[in-house]
């Protein structure tokens, strides 16, 4: 366990916080969960850095996919899930194609995002997409400018999707409600207001 | 479905050069697999007389595994081809007398395939467990 320093000065307490890695502070279940959801043997990572070297996000941020793999192995759940970098993966899968251990770091990241989401750590834009789909069936719905353009092209104003056949929407909503996703999206977005 | 605690009796006849060595390698690598197999070593699967297998079934074996070298790898050039041919014919005979030929398996495991040996055993044990006790079982007692 990290040494608790009950310094009166909060700032100093944070500045001098015990930064050692203690096994007792970690969650070994985190690795198992990441491997289960991500379907990849993250514990086989030998930290060669091919993933970070391949990553389009790494050169322009502090996002290091290799470090996320390491945190999974070491059970550093809290650190991984609360790191805003977790959401900088563009899921391009280049690291997955090149990983010499034949792992899928991208899917490990997706798994960590899934675990973060269980704790309501989800960026707002993801939830807005959920709301839009619940409402219209589309993440990027139609609009009037586009309707006009469609007609000009000889297409119907509404595409042959839930836009034209809204009778399919209840089914979609049922699926999302099965997981209580819309409700969560509304709640989390409202809390963030 | 067979009862969970039932332990099948499965005979394995395996060749000295490939499968026996592969099984030894599985041991050396400490790869764990189900304990339901009893192995008899022969120098080559070519030695396996179909009568041995019939005898085993008659004695009440629930399954028989014959395992040799990969084709082209036989220590004696072609014993495994001949064994494969015999096993194929024997499976046909078993099928024709109404005996499930899945109880007889021939596999090819090389000396370097310890992990494969373990998989083969897992597979064979599962197949036999799914089939349940051999119909000859009572007869043998």
């Amino acid at each position: 366990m990290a040494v608790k320093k009950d310094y009166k000065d909060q700032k100093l307490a944070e500045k001098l916080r015990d930064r050692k890695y203690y096994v007792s502070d970690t969650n070994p279940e985190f690795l198992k969960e990441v491997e289960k959801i991500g379907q990849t043997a993250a514990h086989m990572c030998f930290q060669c850095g091919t993933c970070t070297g391949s990553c389009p996000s790494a050169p322009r941020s502090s996002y290091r996919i290799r470090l996320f793999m390491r945190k999974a192995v070491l059970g550093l759940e809290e650190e991984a899930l609360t790191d805003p970098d977790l959401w900088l993966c563009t899921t391009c899968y280049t690291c997955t194609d090149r990983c010499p251990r034949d792992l899928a770091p991208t899917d490990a990241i997706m798994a960590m995002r899934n675990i973060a989401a269980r704790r309501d750590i989800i960026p707002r834009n993801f939830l807005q997409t959920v709301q839009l789909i619940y409402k219209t069936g589309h993440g990027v719905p139609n609009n009037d400018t586009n309707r006009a353009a469609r007609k000009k092209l000889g297409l119907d104003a509404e595409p042959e999707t839930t836009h034209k056949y809204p009778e399919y929407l209840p089914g979609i909503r049922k699926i999302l409600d099965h997981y209580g996703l819309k409700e969560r999206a509304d709640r989390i977005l409202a809390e963030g207001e | 479905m067979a009862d969970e605690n039932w332990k099948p009796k499965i005979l394995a006849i395996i060749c000295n050069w490939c499968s026996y060595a592969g099984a030894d390698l599985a041991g050396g690598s400490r790869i764990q697999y189900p304990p339901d197999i009893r192995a008899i070593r022969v120098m080559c699967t070519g030695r396996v007389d179909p009568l041995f297998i019939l005898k085993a079934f008659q004695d009440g074996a629930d399954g028989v595994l014959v395992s040799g070298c990969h084709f082209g790898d036989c220590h004696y050039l072609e014993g495994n081809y001949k064994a494969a041919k015999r096993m194929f014919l024997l499976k046909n005979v078993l099928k024709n007398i109404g005996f499930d030929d899945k109880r007889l398996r021939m596999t090819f495991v090389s000396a370097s395939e310890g992990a494969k040996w373990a998989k083969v055993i897992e597979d064979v044990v599962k197949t036999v467990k799914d089939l349940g006790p051999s119909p000859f079982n009572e007869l043998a007692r």
Partner: protein
Amino acid sequence: MSENNKHQYAFFLGCVAPNRYPGIEAAAIKTSEKLGIKLLPLKGASCCPAPGAFGSIDLNIWYAMAARNLVLAEQMGMDIALICNGCYKSIWEVNHKLKHNDELRDGVNEVLAEIDMEYKGSIDVWHLAELYYDPKIVGVDRVAESVTRPLTGVKVGVHYGCHLMKPQKDRHFGDTENPMWLDELVAALGAEPVQYRNKMQCCGAGGGVRGYDLAHALDITNEKMINLQEVGADALTEVCPFCQLQFDRGQLEIHDKFGITWGLPILHYNELLGLAQGMSPDELGLDLHAVDVEPFLRKIQ
């Protein structure tokens, strides 16, 4: 053509193509018709759903939502053809996973049962571009034969996108470091497919990054612009409306955020194909593009 109706597919539209670049939808139907592929409406389809957003929140929801779209096509008894890499990831990959994983399939069917649907795994999913390349369906030669107005004199950079071909092991497109099949399809139209640095780099938009951190996403896009300019590309083509959105509208955003103007026309391959088959810019809705396509059109000899 007597073979015209030989290949029929349920046409999965997705979101960005019908609702932002309807020219792609129009072009896909018309150009495919000329190549012997009939695209039939997949009524009631929804968002694929967006693999970045939904996959990140809960993969199970992503499976179930994609499976619903798959079932619609199963009910038609038809394979799906689509025009977007993001849709390909959702629809193809979920189909692939459900076909090969009984546990997943059972889980999904439990949810689908609530809306009286059942996923059976009876159809396949294809990207139109791969159907064009496949000699058993169309083939590069037939694409070339369909050209009435060759796009000669222009250099076109090709963006393959990520979610169509990667991860390589699960897909069937072969090499993902330096693929050339889409370049071949571009060459078939008379244009010169130009090789640029880091051709396979991501557009920057995927995985929810466009919505999460726009500047970050645009910085990746901007790098692609630099690499394309280096070799003098006259346009960029892709097979993903979401990549198109990122490259096309992204250039406006790059202008706003970074103060850099590129003006590189971005065309979906079906738009390019439409031009080569003689469709007019108006028929393709090219006026809806954020970046003016006119300079590119003028350059075609």
